[in-house]
């Protein structure tokens, strides 16, 4: 039966035309843009199709009466691209607005800084023979540009500083705002008293460089969020919903409580619900970490994310009421998130140390000069010059610049950051806690030849498995070298699949179906399943079980070599965890844990001063991820879990975990170097300022010099290890 695909939740309508945003997989080259756009424009009714190459998203408009959204996706499928309907999250839209505001501030600051610099340069170079009237005119002109520009472009800093001050805290933006405001105020006073120097140029340059840092930081977070949003769209699951008697394929996001769904064997349950009829087994490993399957029948509760194994189920979607598993996990999450927000970013910690020193130095300069007999006016000017020159311009650029470069390096290594300060927290990690199922092991079980079956039998069995929908057969089918199913293979529901091969009947399925005795090898992990194969009088028992990620042992060894303690905390039974821990040489492990027990263990580790990195994928890991100092999850993880993790890694290997720590440590080293560079700069410039020798030229040179130096140093975070 050809199914109807209903995408109405994703389509927006505007006077006769419809619009949909799609995340497209596999767009890699210039040719893809042309191929996708031109082939879509051949469809009748298409008004506009435009692919955004930067975020791999396609916007399509068409006349509603001539075309349906499903046709667009089908057309893309025909030319070899998989497209997924996409709804931008609110957080992403908000960030886009923020980014464009920051860019506007940057543009205004840049314009003002350039124009004021033009005026200042002429004042400096003609300082001796320029008439006083002209100099004053230039200064007033600078004020005319600088004051409105600073009022507009300084807003990001003023807002943030005000927020911090209101809660009686200091952040980096407090000395910045103070420096800018004082520099502008003093310059106005100086101009009014016909002085030789004004500091409008320094104030605007300062704002310009700081906004560069801020905009870079923001651009990085937007880019990774867009990538994460695409991944979420690619992963989005479809459900088979009964509309009356008809079966309609709808995105899982469009399901409502009360909907009736059909869940076939091998499908993931798309929403929490109650079984109406049907008998089956479900695999809840993504929900609880447990690898043994549960039998379900009418009246049983099934959770979103579990896999239906053997029979077809009809499920009624339930509201997420109190007492459900999801509800419990969300409650734990809220608590865990609240404790995590106590983390202080490196930049703010530096500001806490730095800001009082800056303020004290300026105050002491003022008092010192007055005590030495200078006029109050001159002393104030010198004190303010100290404030300007010590303004943490390089400091504010030092950290975001390193973050951007490091995040890009991680991105190329298959790791997508969800939060900007994750790099700093990753660098401090001394303990890594792994979940077992889906994290140390591959997300799907795979065939493991622990029974020593003959290779030719395995080849035949795996090729026969291509004809079955059963999840165990699907695991075996991934082994098949020849991807062509045998002709005339017949699947007998609940038993197995059979076909004629070389004139003899081959059977793959339950032991009874194949007429063999089931034997589970001693090497098999608990929770392993067997599938039997018989052909022409020969037979084999094949084991499908959780398999370690291919590089798990090497990564574990590498992490230990970095001086990191490894722990396994699993929701699965202890006898399933023991062999995995032994294979990886991890001595500390616990099995059969509930989500709150995982949190308790992580909290006690943190209380003993450990910085804990939690790596997990299950729904039951989400609160533990939030409780840990920093967290990673594989892309196969449950949605809530992924949203909670600081970073998500792609692919079948565990190497990104090691890469993350190594890159983060290098980045932190560079951040510290940058902070020191800034401090050294100030150590040279401050005595000059205290001595009252600072001209605008020195201030500007010191500021841009140090900014450029820290930016160049940050580029070194890119180097591969």
């Amino acid at each position, binding site marked *: 039966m050809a199914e109807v695909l209903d995408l109405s939740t994703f389509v927006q309508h505007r006077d006769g035309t419809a619009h949909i945003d799609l995340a497209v997989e596999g767009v890699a080259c210039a040719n893809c*843009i042309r191929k996708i756009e031109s082939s879509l424009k051949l469809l009748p009714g298409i008004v506009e199709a435009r692919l*955004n190459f*930067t975020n791999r998203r396609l916007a399509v408009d068409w006349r509603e009466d001539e075309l349906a959204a499903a046709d667009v996706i089908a057309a893309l499928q025909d030319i070899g691209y998989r497209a997924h309907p996409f709804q931008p999250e609110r957080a992403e839209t908000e960030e886009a607005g923020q980014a*464009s505001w920051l860019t506007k501030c940057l543009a205004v600051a840049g*314009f003002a800084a350039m124009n004021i610099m*033009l005026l200042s340069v002429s004042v400096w170079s003609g300082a001796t023979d320029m008439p006083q009237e002209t100099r004053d005119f230039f200064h007033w*002109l600078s004020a005319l*540009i600088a004051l409105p520009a600073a009022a507009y472009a300084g807003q990001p800093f003023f807002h943030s500083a005000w927020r911090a001050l209101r809660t009686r805290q200091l952040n980096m933006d407090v000395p910045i705002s103070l420096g800018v405001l004082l520099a502008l105020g003093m310059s106005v006073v100086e101009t009014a008293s016909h002085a030789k120097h004004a500091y409008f140029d320094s104030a605007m340059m300062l704002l310009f460089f700081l906004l560069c840092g801020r905009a870079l930081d923001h651009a990085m977070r937007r880019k990774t969020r867009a990538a994460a949003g695409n991944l979420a769209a690619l992963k989005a699951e479809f459900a088979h919903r009964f509309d009356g008697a008809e079966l309609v394929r709808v995105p899982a996001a469009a399901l409502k409580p009360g909907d009736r769904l059909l869940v076939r064997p091998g499908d993931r349950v798309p929403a929490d619900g109650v079984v109406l009829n049907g008998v089956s087994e479900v695999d809840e490993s993504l929900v609880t970490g447990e690898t043994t399957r549960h039998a379900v029948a009418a009246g049983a509760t099934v959770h979103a994310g579990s896999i239906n194994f053997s029979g077809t189920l009809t499920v009624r979607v339930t509201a997420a009421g109190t007492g459900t598993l999801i509800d419990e996990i969300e409650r734990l999450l809220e608590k865990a998130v609240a404790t995590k927000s106590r983390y202080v970013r490196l930049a703010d910690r530096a500001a806490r140390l730095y800001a009082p020193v800056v303020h004290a130095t300026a105050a002491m300069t003022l008092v010192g000069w007055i005590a030495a007999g200078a006029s109050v006016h001159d002393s104030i000017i010198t004190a303010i010059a100290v404030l300007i020159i010590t303004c943490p311009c390089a400091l504010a650029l030092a950290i975001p610049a390193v973050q951007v470069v490091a995040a890009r390096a991680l991105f190329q290594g298959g790791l997508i950051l969800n939060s900007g300060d994750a790099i700093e927290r990753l660098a401090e990690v001394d303990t890594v806690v792994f979940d077992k199922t889906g994290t140390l092991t591959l997300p799907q079980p795979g065939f493991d030849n622990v029974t020593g079956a003959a290779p030719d039998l395995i080849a035949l069995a795996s090729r026969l498995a291509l004809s079955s929908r059963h999840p165990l057969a699907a695991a075996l089918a991934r082994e098949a070298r020849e991807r062509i199913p045998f002709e005339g293979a017949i699947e007998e529901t609940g038993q197995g699949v059979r076909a004629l091969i070389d004139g003899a009947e081959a059977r793959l399925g339950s032991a009874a179906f194949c007429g063999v005795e089931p034997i589970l090898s001693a090497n098999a992990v608990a929770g392993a399943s067997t599938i039997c194969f018989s052909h022409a009088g020969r037979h084999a028992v094949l084991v499908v079980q959780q398999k370690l990620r291919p590089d798990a042992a090497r990564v574990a060894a590498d992490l230990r070599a970095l001086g990191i303690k490894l722990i396994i905390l699993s929701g699965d039974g202890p006898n399933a965890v023991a062999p995995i821990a032994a294979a990886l040489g991890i001595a500390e492990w616990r099995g059969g844990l509930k989500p709150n027990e995982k949190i308790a263990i992580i909290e006690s580790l943190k209380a003993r001063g450990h910085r804990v990195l939690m790596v997990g994928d299950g729904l039951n890991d989400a609160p533990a991820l939030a409780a840990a100092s920093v967290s990673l999850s594989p892309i196969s993880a449950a949605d809530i879990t992924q949203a909670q993790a600081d970073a998500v890694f792609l692919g079948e290997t565990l190497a990104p975990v090691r890469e993350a720590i190594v890159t983060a440590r290098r980045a932190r080293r560079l951040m510290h170097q940058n902070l020191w560079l800034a401090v050294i700069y100030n150590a040279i410039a401050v005595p000059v300022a205290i001595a009252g020798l600072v001209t605008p030229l020195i201030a500007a040179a010191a500021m841009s010099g140090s900014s450029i130096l820290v930016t160049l140093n940050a580029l070194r975070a890119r180097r591969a290890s």
Partner: protein
Amino acid sequence: MNVLIYLVPIALALGLTGLAAFLWSLRNGQYDDVEGAALRVLSDDDVG
């Protein structure tokens, strides 16, 4: 120095024009897909 009376407004007006042009391009979505723009220029569909 009387020349400044019209040179300064001209300089400022030029600067403001640049700023306005940038803000217009930002609002117009010129920076939404910078990677794509670099590649689109290579395809020669429009020629002829």
